[in-house]
C-alpha cells in the first residue's frame, strides 16, 4: 500500500515537471505563442515616442508624475493553504504564504510548521524576494529559518522557483545552503481538481532531500521524506473553505533509521480536518 502511494507521489511530481518539459519542447516550433525570447527584428515598443516620456516633452504636466495605476501599486495577500488538525496525532499544522508587492516583484513569506497543544514543535520560515522571470514562473531568493523544539535550529540561504506548469500544476522547488556545508532540496507540487464550482479536490506532494546527516534533527542525507496529501474542500466562498483530507508520509535512508531508533513510525497516515482561506 505504501509503495503504491510512494509511486503516486513521484508520479505527481514527475508528471508536473514533465509537462513543463514537453511544453518547452513545443516552444521550439515557430508557432510559439507564449514566452521565449524576442527575435532581433522585434518591434521596439518605444519607437513611436519621438523620445518623449510620461513626464518630458510637449504638454506634459509639471512636477512629478501624478497618474499612477495599479501596475505601480503594491498589493498584500495572505493565503492560509493549510490550517489543519489531526486527531490521531493531536498535531496542528499550518502552511501560510504572505505576499506584498507589485506584479513582478514581491516580498514572500512562507511559514510552515507543527504545533502540539500550544507548543510549537517545529517550523520552517522562508523570507524571499520573488521576481517574475517568465509568464508563469517566479524566481525566489532569500533565507530560510528552521526552528525545532527539540533539536538544533538551522539557517539557510534559499534559491528557488515557483509557478504554474502546463496542465495547471503548481510547483515550488527550492535549493538551500546552510552552515557547515549543509544543503537541502525541497519539491512541492499541488493540483486543484474542480469537481464542481465549489467542491475542490487537491492532491499535494512534498519531497525533501538533504546533503548531509543532521542527527540532532533526525534527518539523514539523501532522500529524506515524502508526504502526499489529498484534501477535499468546499468553498463557502472562494476565500473561505473548510476541508477534510488524508496525509500520508514516509521516511527513507538515514531519516528512517533515526525515526526507528527514536521509536517512531517510519511512515504515517493521518486524517486531517482544516481550513483554507485567503485575503
Amino acid at each position, binding site marked *: 500500500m505504501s509503495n503504491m502511494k510512494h509511486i503516486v507521489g513521484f508520479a505527481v511530481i514527475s508528471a508536473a515537471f514533465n509537462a513543463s518539459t514537453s511544453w518547452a519542447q513545443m516552444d521550439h516550433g515557430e*508557432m510559439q*505563442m507564449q514566452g521565449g525570447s*524576442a527575435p532581433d527584428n522585434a518591434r521596439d515598443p518605444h519607437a513611436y515616442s519621438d523620445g518623449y516620456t510620461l513626464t518630458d516633452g510637449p*504638454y506634459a504636466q509639471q512636477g512629478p508624475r501624478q497618474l499612477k495605476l*495599479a501596475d505601480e501599486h503594491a*498589493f498584500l*495577500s495572505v493565503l492560509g493553504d493549510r490550517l489543519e488538525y489531526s486527531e490521531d496525532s493531536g498535531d496542528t499544522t499550518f502552511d501560510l504564504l504572505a505576499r506584498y508587492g507589485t506584479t513582478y516583484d514581491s516580498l514572500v513569506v512562507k511559514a510552515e510548521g507543527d504545533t502540539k497543544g500550544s507548543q510549537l514543535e517545529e517550523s520552517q520560515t522562508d523570507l524571499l524576494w520573488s521576481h517574475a522571470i517568465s509568464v508563469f514562473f517566479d524566481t525566489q531568493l532569500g533565507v530560510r529559518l528552521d526552528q525545532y523544539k527539540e533539536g538544533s535550529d538551522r539557517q539557510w540561504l534559499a534559491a528557488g522557483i515557483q509557478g504554474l506548469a502546463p496542465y*495547471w500544476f503548481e510547483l515550488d522547488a527550492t535549493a538551500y545552503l546552510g552552515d557547515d556545508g549543509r544543503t537541502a532540496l525541497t519539491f512541492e507540487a499541488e493540483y486543484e481538481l474542480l469537481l464542481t464550482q465549489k467542491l475542490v479536490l487537491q492532491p499535494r506532494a512534498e519531497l525533501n532531500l538533504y546533503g548531509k546527516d543532521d542527527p540532532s534533527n533526525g534527518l539523514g542525507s539523501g532522500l529524506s521524506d515524502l508526504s502526499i496529501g489529498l484534501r477535499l474542500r468546499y468553498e463557502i466562498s*472562494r476565500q473561505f473553505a473548510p476541508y477534510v483530507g488524508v496525509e500520508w508520509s514516509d521516511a527513507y535512508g538515514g531519516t528512517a533509521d533515526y525515526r526507528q531508533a527514536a521509536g517512531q513510525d517510519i511512515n504515517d497516515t493521518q486524517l486531517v480536518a482544516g481550513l483554507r482561506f485567503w485575503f
Partner: protein
Amino acid sequence: MSQWLPQQKRSLQPNRRRFVQGLAAGGVLAATPTWLQAAMSSKVAQGQTPVLSGREINLVIAESPVNFTGVTRMATTINGSIPAPTLRLREGDEVTIRVTNHLAVATSIHWHGILLPYQMDGVPGISFKGIAPGETFTYRFTLQQSGTYWYHSHSGFQEMTGMYGALIIEPRAGERHRSDQDYVVQLSDWTDEDPMRAFSKLKMQSDVYNFNQPTFFDFSEDVSKVGLQGALEKRQMWNQMRMNPTDLNDLSAATLTFLMNGTAPNGNWTGLFQRGQRIRLRFINAASNSFYDVRIPGLKLTVIQADGQDVEPVSVDEFRFGPGETYDVLVEPADDAYTIFAQSMDRTGYTRGTLALQQGLSAPVPALDPAEWLTMSDMMGAMGSMAGMNHDSMKGMEGMNHGSMKGMQGMGSMDGMKGMAGMKGMDHSAMNHQPKNPLAKPSSTVNHASSEYGASVDMRVDTPRTNLDDPGIGLRNNGRRVLTLADLKSINGLLDDRRTPTKELELHLTGNMERYSWSFDGLEFGKSTPVSLKHGERVRVILQNDTMMTHPMHLHGMWSELETDQGELRVRRHTIPVQPSQRISFLTTPNDLGRWAWHCHLLFHMDAGMFREVVVS
C-alpha cells in the same frame, strides 16, 4: 484552478446566490444633505434621471448612500443621482460646466467622445491636475458635434461607484431621423464591494469571480460522449497554455448587479409610448467592466448612430457593446409591452427594462443564453479557424508563410472552430497584390514588440483574423441577426479626410490573466512612453489583440475611423471593440494639440495598465 472543461453549451440559470436581481426600488437613498438639495435640479424619482440643459451647468460630486441589493453602501454621485443628470446641450454652443468636489479625495469628469481642448478633457495627470476636495473646476468648451455621448469620472474607481451620466448634444440642423419618444437607456453595473478590494482579489486569484469553470464532472460527461481521447484533446490546448476557455468577463454576477438607468432588474425601468409611435433609444454602456448583448424580443432595432455619429441605418435583432460604446436605435412597437433585455457577455446575469403603453405592463423576460467556451479562432485567430479543417489541408498552409505547424497537431479535433471567415485575413497576405503606395492598405505582417516576450504577456497571436463580420463569442449562429462592425458605415460626408496615411503604427493589446496584468505591447502604463503624433497628420493605427478577451479601446481627443483590412474607410468611432486574436486598423487625424489618454474602457484593464498617453504636437 484546474481546467476540466465543461460541455460547450449549458444554460446558466440565474441563481439567487450568484445573480442579485436587486431591489425593486433601490438606488440613491432619500436622505439628502441640504447643501446638495440646492444643487439638485429636480426631485430624484426611481428610474427618473434628472435632465439639465442650457449653456451653464453646475455639478456637485459627493458621497451618497445607495442600496441596490439590500445592503446600504456609499456611492460617489453627481448631483446626488445614479446615473448622473442627463445633460442635454446644443451643437455649436459654448458651455460652461462648473464641477464642485465635496468628496474627501480628488475627482474629475471626462466628456467621453467629445472633441475639445486637452485641458478640458478631464484626465488627472494628463489633461489637468484633477479637482481637489472643496474645489470647483470650470470646464468651458464649444460643442463641435452632435449625438449621444456620456460623461464620467476619470479618477480611480469613481466611475464604478456611480459617477456616470448621459450627454446628449442636439444637432443644429435638427435630427436626421424623426422620433416621437426619445429615451436614454444607460446600462451600468454595481458592486457592493470596494472596487479596489475586488481588484486585489483578481490579483490574488484571477478567476475568483468565475463560477462557470471547467469541472471534472463536465470532463466525465465529455468522456462518455466523445471518448477519453476526444475529451482530452478538447482540453489540451487550454491546459497546456494555462488559459481558461470560460474567461469572458473578469467580474461576473457573483459580485455585480446589472443596472438599466440606475435600476436593478427587479425595479424594471419603464419607458412609455403611445400606439403608433416611433421611439429613439439612446443606448450607452456606462458599465465598469461588463459587455452587454442587447435585444428587444419582438422588435427590430434600426441602428442609426454609433458613438454619437450617424451611420447608414441597419436593421438588426441584437447588438453587443462594451463600456464606452453607444448605439442609437429606432423601434416601432405594435404590441402593448416589450422587454429591453441586456445580458452580460459571460451569461451570468442581465438587466432589463420595459417599453410599454402604460406603467405596470411588462413582457416576458427571456432566459439567459448558454455560456459558450472561447474557440480556437478566439485564441489563435485565422490559424484557429483553419484548424477546423481536416489534417490534410494543414499541409497546404506551409506555402502561406505562417511558419511551422509544429506542436499544433493536437488542435485539429478541438471543438468550436466555426468561423471560417477568419481565413480572409490570410488570403490577402498570400495574394500580396502590391499597391502603389504601401500605406494604402493596412500591413498584414504581424510585428510583435520585443517587450511581448516576457512575463507580462501570456499569449501572442501570429495569425490574427482581420474580418469585421464576427459578432463574437456567444452570438455566433444564435439564430438572430446580430450587429457586427462590418454592418456599420458612416453616413456620406462624415469620413471626408481621404488622404492616404503618412505613417502606420502597430500596437498589440496584451495581458497576463494569471498575474492579472494588462498592457499595450507588454508594457503597463508605468513602463510605457507616449505615442507621439503630429498635428493634422493622417495616421493609421493597427491594433492587434493578443489576448482572449474583447477590449473596447477608447482614444481621447480625436476620432478613430475604422477601416477594413483592404483599407476601405467604414465608420467613425470613439471606442472600438477589438475581439480576441483580431487585428483591426483605424485612421485618425489629430486636430487638437496636447496630451490625450488612450485605453481599454474595461475599468480594471485600464487600471491594470492597458493605458497609453498620446502626445499631439
